[in-house]
């Protein structure tokens, strides 16, 4: 499984803090597996993606394998 973690507002859109999806997962498969409002939000360049704690420079290049963790990160709101 791949764990998908939703931060901030994206957790509200997803209706959960995290989700387990079947591996492997690329960008298109991830978007197809998520609720529509989250999938749409992911195209916003302000929303970043991390794989196993490393930010992806190019979200569309996402390749997640068994045991990986994807984090979906909206713009930070300041400490």
């Amino acid at each position, binding site marked *: 499984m791949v764990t998908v973690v939703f*931060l*901030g507002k994206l957790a509200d859109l997803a209706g959960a803090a995290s989700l387990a999806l079947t591996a492997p997962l690329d960008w298109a498969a991830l978007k197809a597996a998520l609720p529509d409002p989250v999938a749409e939000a992911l195209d916003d360049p302000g929303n970043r993606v*991390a794989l196993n*704690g490393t930010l992806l420079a190019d979200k569309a290049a996402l390749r997640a394998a068994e045991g990986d963790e994807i984090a979906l990160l*909206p*713009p*930070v*709101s*300041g*400490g």
Partner: protein
Amino acid sequence: MMRDIRLLDRRFVPGTLIGAFTKANPGFGGVCSFLGEVRGDGGVEALELIHYAPLTLPGMHELADCAFDRFALMGLLMVHRVGMMRPGEPIVCVAAAARHRRDAIDAVDFCMDHLKGAAWFWKRERRAGEWRWIAPREQDHRDLARWQA
């Protein structure tokens, strides 16, 4: 070199942190400290700070590395709350010790601007029983840009 970078999930006492930090840096010329508290204006009942463990604390350590590279510091304290807070509770405490005051003052200013504008925190407020996510402020981006020259 005294370096204390932490995320805390419960209330802290700033004076205790700053007192211990000051003692841990003998021979300094100056210590500058900043304490941020949850503002009680506008009917805010509670504030929740969310973090993402794989990014948030490592990001604060990178920020500390940058501060040590950029300023002549003897020590740096950076403590940030996560979780649920109420108005009047401390949320962030940054202190820097240096031989000369300008390094200490600027390092705290630098760290605060980056914590506010670039650190991995998401914040929501409860007013009249309703939770609302806080969007990034334009001012935070301007504050951050000051250091990018």
